[in-house]
């Protein structure tokens, strides 16, 4: 049989009914264009992340050159004299975040155990809904509440009580102002609680029922079952949830900025005003007058970016491992 060439073939294969004859080669061209456009957009996601890193390094270059590693340990932040050190903000960020974790983690794990193991079925959906609602309220609204409700309450009730009972400790010294490290840590705790609680609940729910049944059948109480059968298997996932919460706390900006007092000082007292990496950027970035000032602020942002990037990768590795392990365990 004599074979016609490809062009003839295409014509020969065009369907007899004339209404779609026009489509000729368009179909494949369309496929190629669409595939290309989709790939380009997918590349856009990677490019946005990489671009963020590159742009922030570029923006902070003059500060990096000027201050070098000393930037991290320098305690003076004086825009007027163009002296920039990150130490007060690193201190403020770490302390406020750890304070938030210390308050939020026990409560969040309690909430997760309640939602995953104890709550009656009818309560689980509304309770989960409330937890999600907490996560949906904008940060600036928490900040507003912090300014007008939380800070005055701390100033008038909590801080005097703490000072009376534990005033001999350096952490609870100084005047009660409300605004300060304690308020910052507390509002962060409130904001990261839903994240930690809902991720922890998810990993607990993923623990196979057979483990619980095994413990119960041996005569364990409900809490012993949680202790013996659930928590050990959910541990890695809960640690991941805590790291995710820590990542949020480190980067959380508005609410902290509004209640932490914004002073670039390192103080032992939790009552004293402080500042975080995010809060100083929020307060000063739009008004930074000199190039070096802007570069120093950008370098603070770069540090924040790098730390949260590493934390997120770490947390995802931990949570991901649990997720992957769970079906295997179920299968066996």
């Amino acid at each position: 049989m004599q074979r016609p060439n490809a062009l003839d073939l295409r014509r020969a294969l065009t369907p007899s009914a004339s209404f779609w004859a026009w489509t000729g080669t368009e179909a494949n061209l369309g496929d190629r264009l669409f595939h290309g456009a989709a790939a380009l957009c997918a590349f856009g996601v990677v490019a946005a992340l990489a671009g963020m890193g590159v742009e922030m390094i570029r923006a902070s270059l003059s500060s990096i050159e000027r201050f070098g590693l000393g930037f991290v340990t320098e305690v003076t932040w004086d825009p007027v004299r163009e002296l920039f050190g990150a130490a007060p903000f690193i201190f403020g960020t770490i302390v406020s975040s750890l304070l938030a974790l210390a308050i939020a983690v026990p409560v969040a794990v309690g909430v997760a155990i309640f939602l995953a193991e104890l709550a009656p079925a009818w309560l689980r959906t509304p309770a989960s809904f409330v937890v999600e609602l907490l996560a949906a309220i904008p940060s600036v609204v928490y900040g507003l509440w912090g300014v007008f409700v939380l800070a005055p309450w701390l100033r008038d009730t909590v801080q005097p009580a703490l000072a009376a009972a534990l005033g001999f400790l350096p952490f609870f010294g100084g005047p009660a102002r409300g605004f300060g490290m304690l308020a910052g840590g507390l509002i962060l705790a409130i904001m990261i609680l839903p994240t930690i609680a809902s991720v922890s609940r998810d990993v607990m729910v993923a623990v196979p029922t057979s483990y619980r049944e095994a413990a119960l059948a041996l005569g364990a109480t409900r809490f012993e079952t949680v202790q013996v059968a659930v928590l050990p298997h959910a541990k890695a996932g809960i640690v991941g949830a805590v790291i995710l919460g820590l990542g949020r706390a480190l980067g959380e900006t508005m609410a902290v900025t509004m209640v932490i007092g914004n002073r670039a000082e390192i103080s032992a007292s939790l009552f004293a005003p402080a500042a975080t990496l995010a809060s100083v950027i929020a307060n000063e970035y739009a008004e930074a007058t000199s190039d070096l000032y802007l570069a120093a602020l950008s370098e603070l942002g770069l540090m924040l970016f790098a730390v949260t990037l590493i934390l997120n990768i770490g947390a995802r590795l931990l949570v991901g491992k649990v997720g992957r392990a769970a079906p295997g365990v179920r299968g066996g």
Partner: protein
Amino acid sequence: MMAVEASREAAPTPGSAGDTARSAEARAAATAPAVKMQTEALRAWFGAHEVLKAVSLSIPERRVTAVIGPSGCGKSTFIRCLNRMHEVVPGARSAGAVLLDGVDIFERGVDPVLVRRRVGMVFQRANPFPAMSIADNVLAGLRLNGVRPRHPEEVVERALAQAALWDEVKDILSRSGASLSGGQQQRLCIARTLALEPEVVLMDEPCSALDPIATARIEELIHELKDRYTIVIVTHNMQQAARVSDFTAFFYIGELVEHGETDALFTRPQKARTEDYITGRFG
């Protein structure tokens, strides 16, 4: 070309089955066996696993060809090669030629999209588009191809009537396709295929998920459709193959064992393996 001659040799044995309508049809088949599609040494793989081994088979125009064989014999892969649906599966590839009206559909420069418009397909499980109404499902092939028929309601009625579904759904055309029963869904899928006016209709075990009554309706339908369309049906049910087809091809582990007129193949199989299979000794 070998395969064509083989089918011609197999065809002309009239009179032996008595003076029934069935044999009259067989005689008609013998007198006008124009070849619509033809495979030449068609091979297919999933990854490194070869599922079709050099199959050469011709498919006569406006006849029903049944493809039978035990599961895993490559019969589904075979018909999926006939409209280039095989290559859609990741890791799947094929070699050899498939001629449609004498033109190789695997030739470079041939758009599989155009092949599929001429060679339609009905799947094992009915798969109406759940986000579309019954009428939109029928029109989906045209609309998705960018065609706006001038009288869409006529197209819908004609296709549904051809698929023997019109009377059952004419009052609920705007309901979701997913609301129909399994057998109705499968006939909706057939109507959707027919609305494109293909030349060949491939059916991949269209009744395997249906009850006997729905199966009977589809078989009746196949009988009506063969006046206009060339039909290739894969089935694991030998009675069904015997009931609906004019020609039958028996596959075994990726090879075409025997091919011929259905009556002849079922009554006087030439190969021992075919006989074993149709008498139920394996598979």
